[in-house]
């Protein structure tokens, strides 16, 4: 009895003491669900990372937010919603003056409290307010940049990436691809914010802020690096361009895309009045090497189950959920002095019910116009491409450069050619000579929905205050008269008074304040 007791005791004791020895190994778990970043140093990992870059920019969500804002601030769309502080931040127009001049109507006075846009920006650029729209472009850009840096880090790592074949060509191509996206990211920052950062390491940052001009220079430098090794792009094209995208990007068209973006970066980063003749020639030179057909243009597309620009969020102009078409865009296609623009049929008037009626509190800012579903501007169906870069943009840049260089006839040729592009089919008679108004209007309609509207409005001075000579005249504005009828005033004036460049988002500044001596804008 006594002995047995001891045996049991010893058995249990041994178990208790041995247990931890057996347990130690169990502590070394690995996460079976996702790979570590080192995976990029393998060929398959590199391939997936280089493709994953499309997702890195925020998986559509932030892209959609920032693109929508850029369209709204350029008066291509109107946003009736408070989400992201849209309707207060960007719908906060300085003044609307009706054609009879007697009823100047200030949207700002209707806001509470009545802030100028500058004040709203100060208010919104605060993490405690999380005016998401403000920082979307920054976050999206630096996520692209980070993904690109991870690719470069793997390529530069000791031993590099062990490619199975065509090693040098693949390395060159991935390197070019990474620099291309770094250029795109820096351009996103340099065109919108006062200051930006140049960051060349993954998962890292610095406080050496550059001004917007320096960011554009950095973007051009990255595009140049991309061009240096672009000639082997073809070997990775099928790996990095999603197979759901409709266009086949060859080495040649890849290079054309880069030149179009270089021309865009230069054109959009300056006030039109400040561009020198040499710069116009540079724009023309780059654009001449840019896209002439949309066959090889970089587009974004979605299929039924996966998306980049989410079908649920992107350009739901046809469904009046998030944004509606600015009456000034509709005005362009309806008031072409040269004839009837077939593109007018892409818009439909809908003031009854739906979001419009529910949110109509400021009809002067809101709009009764929708996009007709299935037109090139908007679709809820997967498989309808959304443009990043287009031949239309390239041609209109050529037209503008030629006009600035004193060749209105050549400019007209480009406009005529652009209007005949498959997605335009404007059906307008050819023009023999064009002026800036024509090009401006053509940009508004042909490049609708491509996130260029704010930059156009800025470089042409439209966003400036009334006192600074900004605004648009002869514009379509709706209001409700005393009989409750929705009335179109087709000769009103709008003054926006928006900022040209925006401060570093608070999300960045709070954690990464600019060091002393950082260049001022």
């Amino acid at each position, binding site marked *: 009895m006594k002995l047995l007791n001891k045996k049991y005791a010893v058995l*249990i004791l041994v178990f208790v*003491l041995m247990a931890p020895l057996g347990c130690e190994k169990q*502590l070394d778990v690995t996460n079976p*669900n*996702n790979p570590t970043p080192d995976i990029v140093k393998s060929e398959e990992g590199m391939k997936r990372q280089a493709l994953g870059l499309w997702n890195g920019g925020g998986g559509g969500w932030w892209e959609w937010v920032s693109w929508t804002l850029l369209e709204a601030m350029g008066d291509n769309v109107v946003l009736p919603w408070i989400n992201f502080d849209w309707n207060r931040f960007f719908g906060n127009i300085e003044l609307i003056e009706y054609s009879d001049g007697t009823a100047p109507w200030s949207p700002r006075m209707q806001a509470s409290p009545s802030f100028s846009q500058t004040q709203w920006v100060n208010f919104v650029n605060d*993490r405690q307010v999380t005016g998401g729209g403000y920082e979307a472009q920054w976050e999206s850009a630096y996520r692209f940049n980070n993904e690109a840096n991870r690719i470069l880090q793997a390529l530069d790592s000791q031993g590099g990436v062990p490619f199975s074949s065509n090693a040098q060509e693949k390395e060159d191509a991935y390197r070019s691809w990474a620099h291309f996206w770094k250029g795109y990211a820096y351009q996103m920052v340099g065109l919108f914010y006062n200051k930006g950062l140049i960051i060349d390491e993954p998962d890292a940052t610095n406080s050496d802020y550059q001004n917007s001009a320096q960011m554009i220079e950095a973007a051009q430098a990255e595009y140049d690096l991309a061009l240096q090794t672009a000639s082997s792009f073809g070997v990775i094209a099928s790996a990095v361009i999603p197979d759901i995208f409709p266009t086949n990007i060859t080495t040649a068209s890849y290079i054309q895309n880069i030149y179009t973006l270089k021309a865009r970066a230069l054109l959009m980063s300056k006030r039109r009045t400040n561009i020198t003749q040499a710069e116009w020639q540079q724009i023309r030179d780059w654009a001449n090497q840019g896209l002439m057909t949309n066959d090889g243009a970089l587009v974004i597309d979605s299929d039924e189950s996966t998306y980049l620009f989410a079908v649920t969020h992107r350009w739901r102009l046809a469904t009046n959920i998030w944004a509606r078409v600015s009456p000034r865009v509709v005005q362009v296609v309806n008031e072409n002095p040269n004839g009837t623009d077939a593109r007018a049929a892409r818009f439909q008037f809908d003031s009854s019910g739906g979001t419009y*009626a529910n949110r109509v509190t400021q009809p002067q800012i809101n709009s009764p116009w929708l996009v007709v579903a299935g037109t090139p501007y908007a679709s809820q169906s997967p498989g309808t491409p959304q443009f990043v870069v287009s031949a239309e943009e390239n041609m209109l840049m050529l037209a503008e450069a030629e006009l600035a260089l004193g060749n209105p006839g050549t400019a007209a040729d480009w406009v005529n050619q652009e209007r005949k592009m498959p997605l335009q089919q404007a059906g307008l008679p050819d023009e023999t000579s064009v002026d800036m108004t024509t090009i401006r209007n053509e940009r508004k309609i042909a490049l609708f929905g491509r996130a260029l509207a704010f930059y156009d409005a800025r470089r042409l001075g439209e966003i400036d205050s009334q006192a600074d000579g900004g605004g648009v005249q002869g514009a379509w504005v709706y209001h409700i008269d005393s009989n409750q009828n929705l009335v179109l005033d087709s000769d009103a004036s709008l003054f926006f008074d928006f900022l040209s460049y925006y401060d570093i988002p608070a999300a960045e500044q709070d954690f990464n304040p600019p060091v002393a001596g950082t260049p001022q804008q």
Partner: protein
Amino acid sequence: MRRLIHTFIALCLMSFFVLEGHAQTANLSGKITDANTGDPLPGANVILKDLNKGAAADVDGNYMISSVSPGTYQLTATFIGYKQFFQNIELSSGTNTLDITLEPDFIGFDEIVVTGAGVATSKKKLGIDVAAVDEERLTKVESYDISSALTGKIAGASITNAGLPGAPATIVLRGINTMGVSRPMIMVDGVEIDASTYESGSSNDLSDRLADLDLSDVERVEVVKGAAAATLYGAQGANGVIQIFTKSGHSGKMQIDASTSWSFDQLNSNRTVEQNTNFHSFPVDENGYIIGMSFDAKNGIWTLPSQEPNGVTDNPYIGYINQNGEKVPLSVYNNRIEDFYHTTATQNHDISISGGNNRSTYLISGSYLDQNGIEPKTGFNRLSFRLNTDTDIRDDLRLSLRTNYLNSDQFGATESGDNVESGLNTLLTTQPFIDVFRRNPNGQYAPKFEAGSVSTNPLFFKDIQDLKTNTNRFIGSGNLNYRPSKILELNYRFGLDYYYSQFDRVQKNAQGFEDPTTTEDEIVILQADGFVNRIGRTNWRYNSIADATLRTDFSRDFKIDVPIESTTLFKFDWRKNDYQSTTAEGTSLPFGIDLETLRATSNPQIDEYKSTFVTYGFLVNQKFEYKQLLGISGGIRADKSSAFGRAADYSYFPRGDVYLRISELGFWEPLVNRVTDFKIRAAYGEAGTQPGAYDRFVTLDQALIGSQGTFNTSGTASNPALGVEKSKEFELGGDIALKFDGNWFQTIGISGTYWNRENSGAIQSIDTAPSIGALNILTNALSLSSDGVDLSLNSLVFFNDNWNWRTNINFGNAQTKVKSIANHQDLVLEPTSSFRYIFREGEPFGAFYGFKPLASVNEIDPTTGERYIPEDMVNNYVLVDGAVVNRFNKQIQFRSQQELIGNPTPDFTMSFRNDFQIKKNLDVAFQVDWVQGGDIFNATKWWMFNSGVNKEFEDKVLIDGGETVGGPLYDGQGNPTSNISTVNGSEPQAWRNYHASKRQEATPYFVEDGSYVKLREVSISYDFSSLITSDLVRYLRFGVSGRNLLTFSGYSGFDPEVSGQAQDVRYRNLDIFTYPNYRTLIFKASVGF
């Protein structure tokens, strides 16, 4: 570590030398009865302390201890709810008899507890605060789950119940200790079980694995509330521990206990949230009929005209001119809430059979609950089977097995807690003239009510969608207890908690409805062509716990003549959790064919996730006790876990406690008749909270573009340096027992504890510079400090042969502050658009922030140093109800920086409970819970203000000195605007603008005091067994009881008991179309044979 092992070996070896044998044997038997009633006490324990040997009384109260050596022994008898019995007894060889009567312990000071103490210990000899609730109090009023049964019964525990059946309650023990879910560790019979929650419809409608447990099996619940008492549980004990003990069988003849109950649940609201049903702002013709409005009888959808842009005319809902130019009268509906939330019946049945002989006992039980939620198509069913056995394999070796099979079904809700998709939102914001319950001639509900609206008709939605979480679960544990000598006890326990829980969401193809969706995008949650979503979750949780307890008495075992007893506990505790989930989704079900499987969908997608978590720890704890007077103990626990890997160091959690029973000191002698017990105690302990299984791993995200796999950086950066959240708690308390002669206040017990807790390294994802490529980083971000007081008073208020009145009062108060944040930046959390909780250093935890109105036209903006309102504009503003209002647009002006506008933490929570027993047969009990303070952000009202449909929009407001109510709107130049129409010459009104401006952002207008007093429980029951002549029936009881029957509160929403967002303590007291709580009336019959 090695030293610990050596110490343990030494202690164990020591025990073998003091083992002793015996030749002649003595037996002891007798009967244990209640000192007051004389009733037998089956299950009461008798132990010969010196031998560590005992027996339990059978159903007739008889006990028998056999085969011990003759000699003198210390005998103790214990039973739950009774005072401990001590006696020295001399046993001669042969049979000895001792009948024992136990005195009821009305104040619980003599209670034996295990949780937190490690070794079963009388509360008299504890330096820590352990709360215990027995079966009687838990089940007097039927509850469907353990959380609601515990509500109000533990001082310092704040339990907020959810309305959705099977959904989790938010349990906070003594203030907030972690960022996220504060649920304590849940143990059943000594092993930890999984108490996760999963989405069952939306992120606010959860399915709770704690709700699986069947309350009828529960004998007792013990609660330790924080680190001071929870160090034994190491890196997982920081939120406290709730330990549930299930019933055991008693030796003796078989007993059968059965009960059945029918209960009725209904909306717990004395009032309801009301709409503005008097005025509208649609355009009208000269007779007041709305123009531009139409109704499609086929699909039930209205097309509404634009509302007037600013202000309203005071037009009543007379009628409208339809598309054919006919005048159609309109009436308003104001009883939608009552029509949507039904009174529902719930049934609950249980039976248990128990018995055994003097070596083994068994208990078999089964129960079935069928609960119907007050919202249509919600509910909870549970089937439970249990088999508990206890077997004395030998006199010194006992095997206890606990097995429980559970099967539960939760039928989910539709997106409560959401401002767009919830049914409640639709009911409360739909125009009041719309008949939401209308079915079209085909018997179908309208898919939505307003063309262009993003809200779906919840009834339509419920018609086409089924939400269910089914859980199949086995919880089992085995405990082997070995007492090889009078000083050593070895115990090994293994536990397994396995479940497979499957969430199913099937939505039929809705093409059969006329225009189910004008476009797919318009109805956010409604995929018109249907979908199937299944999530299967498998979880295995293993516990393996070995402990050794060494109890020595210095005079007895070492012949040292000091009255000191020593207890040493050594414990090794290993736990593992394997989790796997498989998600499958497919869209587009065929129309008109009853196929609901993924196979029928057009493009099913599958995803899988696995995780493994392993942790183990050692504990050593040493306690010395000097007579009945003084006890002191100290210990340390060391933990490792796979969340940190093998290479990481142990996390150490020290503890210590001391008590002094002043009433045992000599000078107390004259007082002891009045103050029978007076103890002071203090304890310190540390405990932790583990991070997620893979939180420290830096990985790339995976996704698909088309069919191609991709990697990209996660938006939330990982932190390889992540550590355990540590909580350090100090508590200081006292227990005092008073006694009075006569029938009144025979005994009063008061326990009080002051506690203070510092939590460091609470894990939270905080913002980081986006330029690093991620938006935030998961890190040990916050330090929190809390303190508070727990008080409880128990009293036998009155006692005589016919009457017995007991009172229990619990009081708890806890305040938590954010002590520091890693990056010293405010942490801003925005659970719903524009409503923010801001965590700011030095400020209360989880407070609401928003914009306060300007109180004076001369206020200065502190951020700019400039006036909010320029001096030359001052005349454009007037003061209304203390707020500056723009005279032109009637809008309230707000400050530009966010300030604290509300704190959800209550000042205190309190409960009063009274139990009466009248003539032994009639039981009456009631419990009143009082929560004082604690703000609620009424986001339901806030969103109704957004739509302008709240009742308050009917309130005319005096602006501009009151000469005109409202007055016209003006433009920026001071001219009346042309935007207001006048109808029948009536004055255009603008108070609507005033009301609407309250809701620019979160503002104090929506912060309400959440204080309430609730009649939580009330019950009357009568035992008819005395009327039955048969001996067969032990009891036959019928009762009527109620839960949450009455609520008194100034809160204007449905119920001030707001379960908040997914039991996350960061988002407390946010009432946003939350599934409302219910009240219950219960009829119950129970019988015992």
